[in-house]
């Protein structure tokens, strides 16, 4: 029996479809027990949005253009956040994820400084959910305590759950069966998740698109999130 091919989880973000509605942000909060830090903390920059929609404005009114993109952990194959963790809290899993092990994290915050994408978030205080919001917590995901770093995990709990179910049913995981909360929620289906190593998967197909780019590629981080640029930004009429 030939060995199963190693999975390489990746995400494709179609910027042409993305409307910037931020439903993904809310879904991620709900799925992953991410605390809302409150107005005061958010004002000094401690908000924790594992996925966020970045906006850049170009030009002056009335010729304003908004460029926006959802940014979340790129699960880099040469992640700069991984070698700098002294306790192996940040490491690379065999299926291509950048794993964050909350139990090992002692909070040196080096990984957050090293990450060029600003996708790591720190628990500056113990998170609290006012009743009855604590009933909303997802039992599949741990609640992190003060001093621990966290970030997008590609909803590893859903990946694991699917793997377990597929193994129990003695079959392979189907393409599109694993849906991180953001991809599941996205109304225009701008977020597509799948196995890059599977040549028949949707992400593999989209990764070959001529619109495919990656963020900060020249830093050598080998990110695994592929951004499909908007066609209108490439129509030659405006400089990029």
């Amino acid at each position, binding site marked *: 029996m030939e060995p199963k091919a190693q999975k390489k989880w990746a995400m494709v973000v179609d910027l042409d479809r993305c409307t910037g509605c931020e439903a993904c942000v809310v879904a991620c909060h709900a799925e992953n027990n991410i605390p809302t830090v409150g107005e005061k903390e958010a004002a000094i920059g401690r908000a924790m949005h594992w996925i966020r929609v970045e906006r850049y404005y170009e030009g002056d009114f009335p010729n304003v253009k908004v460029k926006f993109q959802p940014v979340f952990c790129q699960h880099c194959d040469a992640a700069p956040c*991984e*070698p700098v963790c002294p306790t192996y809290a940040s490491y*690379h899993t065999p299926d291509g994820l950048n794993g964050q092990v909350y139990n090992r994290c002692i909070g040196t915050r080096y990984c957050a400084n090293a990450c060029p994408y600003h996708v790591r978030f720190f628990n500056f205080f113990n998170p609290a959910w006012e009743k009855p919001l604590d009933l909303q917590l997802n039992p599949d995901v741990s609640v992190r305590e003060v001093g621990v770093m966290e970030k997008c995990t590609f909803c590893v709990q859903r990946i694991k759950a699917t793997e377990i179910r597929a193994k129990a049913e003695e079959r392979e995981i189907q393409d599109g069966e694993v849906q991180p909360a953001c991809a599941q929620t996205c109304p225009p289906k701008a977020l597509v998740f799948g196995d890059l190593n599977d040549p028949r998967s949707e992400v593999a197909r989209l990764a070959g698109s001529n619109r495919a780019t990656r963020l900060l590629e020249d830093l050598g981080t*080998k990110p695994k999130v592929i951004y499909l640029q908007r066609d209108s930004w490439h129509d030659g009429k405006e400089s990029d």
Partner: protein
Amino acid sequence: MLKAIYGLYADPDSAQRAVDSLRAAGVDERAISVASSEPFEEYEFGRREQRTPMAWLAALGGLVGGVSGYLLSSLTQKAYPLPTGGMPLAPLWTNGIITYELTMLGAILATLAILLVSARLPNWKPQLYDPAISDGYILVGVVSPPEALRIGLERTLREAGASEVKELVVGLDAEPRTQGVSE
């Protein structure tokens, strides 16, 4: 029981004379004891037993440290393999730094250990010593002198220019008693 007879000398020249005279009187080199509150390396008496393999042993300590550092970093990283950042599990670059630091630590600790052992520290047992040394006097004496030679040694020490000649007797109760030896 520690018995000794010694003289206190105000300057290193007379101390040197005393050591020479004791040698001329036939006292065994190992029985001659010198103590001072500062090193006198320009004088022969200050250069006794100078040769030491300390540097070589420190280098050996460094080698031990270096090997330990290399083994610690390379073996532990492979024992629980957690790949990070696309790097190899036990890169030579990073292991090299750990190896280097532990090499230096090994050399320093080896030096410390050899110092303590060869200088016989700590040693809180009664020894041939006189607090006058702290005032700048140099002590030159003979440990466990044969009773018959005592008078002769006392004269030798005095003739070399001692400010005082004393006798140190440490009894069974380990309390040292010194007494000046009268003329």
